[in-house]
């Protein structure tokens, strides 16, 4: 999730990025990349890109679904 957000920021195609990560944040040792091999180069304006991030839980924790009148979210 973080690489996706950072990739968007580094490429600077957008001035503003708002991301909603509504998911669990399990730490999966078998799925961890030691290095980010395809990390994009930082565009000159990447430092000015504003990013709003929202996560359903803290790192390593589970998210939770509840019923909103027939819709689960």
């Amino acid at each position, binding site marked *: 999730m973080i690489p996706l957000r950072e990739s968007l920021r580094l490429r600077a195609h957008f001035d503003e990025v*708002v991301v909603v990560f509504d998911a669990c944040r399990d730490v999966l040792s078998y799925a961890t990349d030691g290095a980010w091999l395809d990390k994009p180069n930082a565009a000159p304006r990447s430092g000015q890109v504003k990013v709003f991030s929202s996560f359903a*839980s803290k790192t390593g924790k589970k998210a939770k679904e509840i019923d909103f009148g027939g819709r689960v*979210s």
Partner: protein
Amino acid sequence: MTQAFLAGAKGYAADENGVVYAHNLRAYLYAAVKDKLGSDFEPDFDDGVDPGTPWELFRAPRRLPKIVIKPVNLTAGKAMFRKRGAAPLEIDLAAGVQGIEVPYGYYALTLPDGTERDVTAAWEEKVVEV
């Protein structure tokens, strides 16, 4: 959290001028998610701005959450509903069910017997049985 985000963006996190700032959305999401899922649930937000630098995310007419006081066990006497630092609102429980529209945030409801209940205003409607 998706529902909280949508509600906030649609106006529940807007200020009186109809602007949803990043820092307000962050505060709203925190209150809304914890209100639905419980205080032991910890969402995580980064509003991406330096303190004192407002970032206008969305524009939407402000919507106010409604707190519905529903007398079930306490059907007489006065209750006081207030936000920290603000003047309390007196509620006559004998008048039956009544709704109060307030800006999102954390409130306290003091009942006639002196007990106090914490009330979070975030969603369209929240029923508080007393």
